[in-house]
């Protein structure tokens, strides 16, 4: 696998469709067949790469296939791409569904050239979002996807297409602006200056407290000690950030070094030289600073590469001085850097006068929440979705439901949770509540629909609720389930939209009540539809089952809501969410009954069953739905190390968060550190001792510890297991 490191695999994955756009634009409009072939070929490349990655990828929790080039001088914007366990399922999904959507569009007859050019551009935007590791690049791809989508709905859509397109555009734009604000803020704050100011203010507060204490005023000694503890944590954070600022500069200087003193060696050449000499060159391993130093010292050992006596070296030394003087180079858009840069504190930022003061991070987190929530879509922001889905042509609906919605949840995982871990913990319960609302509200709306496409659209709202719930739980099972649910919903809902498209092509309407008994005439069609519906319902043996079960299990044992009211605990929320499964079964089965069974509507007796192209688009999805339903292990393996690592990152921030919580509202809540201590007191039985029952046993292999697991990861896993054990002990007591 590492020999492929020199290949810009992810750039190819992202830009192959864009290349297709250019080629399509060069073909004369009358050669529609060539345009369609070229477009399909261009879309096939990401699919093949996605399949390759599926087989080749071994999750280590680190970034692989890393590409990094300086993009914009001065702003320290880099072209960074890479994948880890979070992105791999998404790029597989994006590759496969994208290709299928292009093939499913062969029936398009209006302005063929424009359509295929735009859909390929759309694929580039989506693929780019899933692989970019630079916030700026992420934002550019995120926006890039918006424009083709507007045209695809606005020009090729149904009767109300203009309204749907504008609505989609405005909603997404609003979200993008909020994301832009966070983007800028995170860049400005990534050099730790803001945290310095905050620490100064806090120090003065403590000084005044101590003064009051000495002057005889009654000051709670705990208050002072808490504040001191908080300050110590902040100092630690600041030192950490400062070290990282230096490191970012070192990286910039290494870039110079690679070009100048190495006799103009390119990055790839250097990498090859390093590999030949047996030097590890895995960027973004956990301790990047150490690695940078190691690589630097190793570089010096290579003969003839660095010569302090030559003029280039002097030039490079001068450049390095310039780099160290440039304030902008200490700031960064690198997502894997930002995740260690954001000042974690609960400050006193007042967004509006009538709101209680929030931390600045919380405000940014909420901005980002709105940006992603619009995409997911989370309940109050969902109104664009039924319109866009119903008005868009079939293939675009497939892309919307199959990939675009996932970008929202992916954004939560990739950006919100890794940059704002403290807020991820603080807002876990509201997130879960929104998730449950999505599940129930979406299901209820779906039940009320007569339009098949609208029904499927609302079912998407409902199913994305499961993703939100699992994600908010912050347990390994929950988060794994959430990612899996994204993947599985992507395949099953794509099938459903394709199938709705098939019947619409024949009947030219989608009114559920006007069909009936179609199973007699279209047996293959009915078979596929049944499969898709069952998968969506979460029937065991099909893909939806495993992810929903993981979400429920992960959510049920989550301890996130402990300090809020018990009625909002994750346990009760999970029970409500399970209701959603029942509702799902109800509306899907009801639809099935109205469309496929009962007396045959005579109007439809002459309809042909599915043709070759339709089968071609549906069979791969059907195979995936069944295969990953029966044997989900390969999918679980994709995230087996990344998810614990993310969890550990989030939990590591809890110490600081709870220190602040304690100082703000000293109500004696057990904070995370104490919690760990308490759980640690339970005699740690061997793994087999805590034998889980039922479904959990079946899942055990997915969670088996790995040889390369780090100490921190193990600690987090142990903490989680301890919670589970306590719960088991309590159950037994009862």
């Amino acid at each position: 696998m590492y020999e492929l490191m020199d290949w810009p695999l992810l750039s190819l994955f992202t830009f192959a469709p864009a290349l297709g756009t250019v080629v399509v634009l060069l073909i004369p409009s009358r050669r529609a067949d060539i345009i369609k072939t070229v477009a399909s070929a261009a879309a096939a490349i990401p699919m093949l790469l996605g399949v390759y990655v599926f087989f080749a990828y071994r999750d280590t929790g680190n970034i692989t296939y890393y590409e990094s080039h300086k993009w914009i001088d001065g702003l320290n914007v880099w072209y960074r791409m890479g994948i880890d366990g979070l992105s791999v399922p998404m790029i597989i999904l994006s590759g496969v569904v994208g290709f299928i959507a292009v093939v499913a569009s062969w029936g398009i007859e209006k302005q063929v050239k424009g359509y295929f050019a735009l859909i390929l551009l759309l694929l580039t935007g989506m693929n780019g979002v899933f692989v970019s590791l630079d916030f700026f690049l992420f934002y550019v791809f995120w926006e890039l996807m918006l424009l083709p989508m507007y045209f695809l709905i606005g020009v090729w859509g149904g009767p109300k297409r203009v309204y749907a397109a504008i609505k989609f555009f405005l909603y997404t734009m609003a979200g993008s602006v909020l994301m832009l604000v966070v983007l800028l803020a995170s860049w400005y704050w990534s050099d730790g200056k803001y945290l310095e100011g905050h620490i100064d203010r806090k120090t003065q507060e403590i000084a005044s407290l101590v003064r009051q204490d000495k002057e005889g005023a009654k000051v709670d000694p705990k208050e002072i000690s808490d504040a001191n503890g908080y300050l110590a944590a902040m100092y630690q954070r600041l030192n950490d950030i400062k070290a990282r600022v230096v490191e970012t500069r070192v990286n910039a200087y290494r870039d110079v070094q690679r070009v100048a003193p190495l006799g103009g060696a390119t990055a790839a050449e250097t990498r090859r030289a390093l590999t030949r000499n047996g030097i590890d060159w895995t960027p973004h391993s956990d301790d990047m600073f150490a690695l940078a130093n190691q690589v630097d010292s190793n570089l010096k050992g290579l003969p003839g590469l660095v010569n302090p006596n030559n003029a280039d070296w002097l030039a490079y030394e001068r450049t390095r001085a310039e780099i160290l003087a440039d304030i902008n180079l200490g700031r960064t858009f690198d997502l894997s850097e930002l995740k260690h840069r954001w000042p974690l504190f609960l400050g006193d930022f007042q967004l509006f006068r009538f709101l209680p003061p929030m931390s600045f991070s919380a405000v940014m987190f909420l901005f980002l929440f709105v940006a992603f929530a619009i995409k997911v879509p989370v309940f109050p922001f969902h109104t664009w979705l039924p319109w866009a889905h119903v008005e868009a042509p079939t293939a675009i609906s497939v892309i919307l439901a199959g990939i675009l919605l996932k970008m929202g949840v992916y954004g939560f995982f990739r950006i919100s949770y890794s940059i704002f871990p403290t807020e991820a913990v603080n807002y876990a319960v509201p997130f879960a509540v929104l998730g449950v609302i999505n599940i129930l509200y979406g299901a209820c709306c779906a039940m009320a629909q007569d339009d098949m496409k609208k029904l499927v659209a609302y079912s998407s709202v409902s199913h994305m609720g499961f993703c939100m719930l699992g994600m908010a739980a912050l347990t390994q099972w929950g988060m794994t389930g959430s990612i899996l649910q994204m993947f599985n919903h992507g395949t099953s809902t794509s099938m459903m939209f394709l199938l709705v498209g098939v019947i619409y092509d024949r009947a030219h309407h989608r009114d559920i009540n006007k069909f009936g008994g179609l199973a007699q005439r279209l047996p293959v069609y009915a078979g596929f539809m049944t499969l898709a519906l069952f998968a969506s319902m979460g029937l065991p043996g099909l893909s939806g089952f495993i992810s929903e079960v993981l979400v429920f299990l992960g959510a049920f044992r989550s301890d996130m809501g402990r300090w809020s009211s018990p009625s909002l605990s994750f346990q009760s929320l999970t029970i409500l969410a399970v209701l959603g499964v029942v509702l799902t079964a109800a509306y899907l089965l009801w639809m099935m009954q109205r469309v496929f069974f009962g007396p045959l509507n005579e109007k439809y007796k002459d309809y042909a069953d599915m043709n070759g192209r339709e089968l071609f688009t549906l069979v791969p999805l059907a195979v995936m739905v069944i295969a990953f339903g029966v044997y989900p292990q390969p999918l679980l393996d994709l995230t087996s190390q990344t998810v614990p690592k993310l969890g550990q990152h989030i939990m590591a921030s809890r110490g600081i968060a709870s220190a602040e919580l304690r100082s703000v509202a000293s109500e004696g809540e057990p904070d995370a550190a104490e919690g760990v201590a308490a759980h640690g007191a339970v005699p740690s039985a061997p793994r087999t001792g805590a034998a889980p029952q039922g479904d959990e046993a079946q899942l055990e292999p997915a969670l088996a510890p790995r040889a390369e697991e780090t100490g921190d990861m193990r600690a987090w896993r142990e903490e989680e297991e301890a919670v589970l054990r306590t719960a088991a002990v309590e159950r037994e007591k009862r």
Partner: protein
Amino acid sequence: MNWSELSELLPVGVVLAAALVVVFLDLVIAHKDRYALPMVALAGCVLGLGSLIQNYLSLTTYYKQSPPWFSGAAETAAGAFNPLILGGHFSIDLFGFAIAGVALLAGALSVLSSAHEEDDSALSSGEYYGLILLAVAGMMLLGFAHDFLTLLVSLEIMSISTYILAGSRRDLKSGEAALKYLVLGAFSTAFLMMGIAFIYGATGKLSLSEVLIPSEQLVSSAFLIRGGLALLLVGVLFKVGAAPFHFWIPDVYEGAPTGVTGLMATGVKAAAFAVLGRLAFETFGPRYAHDWAWLFAAAAVLTMAVGNFLALRQENVKRMLAYSGIAHTGYLLLGFLVSPNADGIMLADQLQNAVFYLLAYALMTLGAFGVVGLVREDGRRLERLEDFAGLSKEHPGLALCMAMFMFSLAGLPPFAGFFAKFLVFKSAVDAGYVLPAVLGVLTSVASMAYYLRVVRAMYVDPVRATKPGEAPAGARCRYSWTTNLLIYGAGLATILLGLFPSGPTFLLR
């Protein structure tokens, strides 16, 4: 005065010579080939650009370093680059080079977009192209001008040429535009002149970077200087078209021939911003930033608000673009806010960002006006929004470029406009003006609404029948290879600048 330094102004000389050649050529050649005159004018611009680059390169090789961004940033040590030439009347610095470059680009592109106007003899005469070149020469001089006298004279060269250009089409609207432009332009020049007179009277100095150097006299006649600077600023804000001095822009832009409108919206604006930039960075600088920058910030916020919200109501695309130009003046003003504790590096950085904006804005605006100039029917120019319906079907390439210009003007990535806005907002935040930058982001979202209307008209809206009883047909364009060259070139540049924003700075090395 060292007259050999006059060679630094050779690019201006080239353009002037081209202007004279065009005017005389019109008398000599028969009007068979309508492309002859524009091609000579274009050659003048290209030669001017070549001469400008040649100047830059020879300076860089001579001093072994590139010129400073502005004369105040030049190191005073012996042997260092001294950009002030010809007794301090001109400053040969990067800012000047950039403005002159943008002016030449704007001139060349507006020549390209005027070359098809053969139906209107006034627009194909030698005087028309001669005046364009004269205006460009004025803009270039304005870019380099470093004292009030040179500045005023250069400004008038540019202005007088554009007054007449604005009225060069033979109809009432064009005449109205020219008259309005003349009256209001003269009005603003009067303000400018009065301000300069006050300042000269108080200090006895004319050099931009010297008038405010602290001295006994400066303190004793502060009152006069204040008044003079206030008048000067009013004049400059008038010229750049910032609110509340923006009233002339929509009428003038709408009435003037489209090629001239493009020139006014980009070249003239860039030159006016050269004056503003020199005032902000050289005359005031960080030392007086505390006194003046808030005024720019207030004008910026007002201009952004007024431009964007009035643009929302326009039905005429040209008029809409005029209001959008006002809004962009507001964004540009954000790039000229100076922090009281800015150092030379930061100021140079800010100037660089502002110049990037001017360049990106020139490309997309000229491209957009190019498309507007082509849309017509039975020889009638069509400028209303509904006239663009169906353009995507009749002319997919032009419609695509127009859509790109609109998205770029709105500031969507990955187009040049996004980075331009990003950079000036960054400048403003760096200078400590966070609120204006945030308002800039918000108004720029609102601007999406009216830019999208154009895109919607071209791609989504149903086409209408031109006459009752006829089959509906999409908007039709004239064919002109020069204008097409302009549009596709600007479109390509808009994307390339967006994808590689550090490209221009890379070229400077």
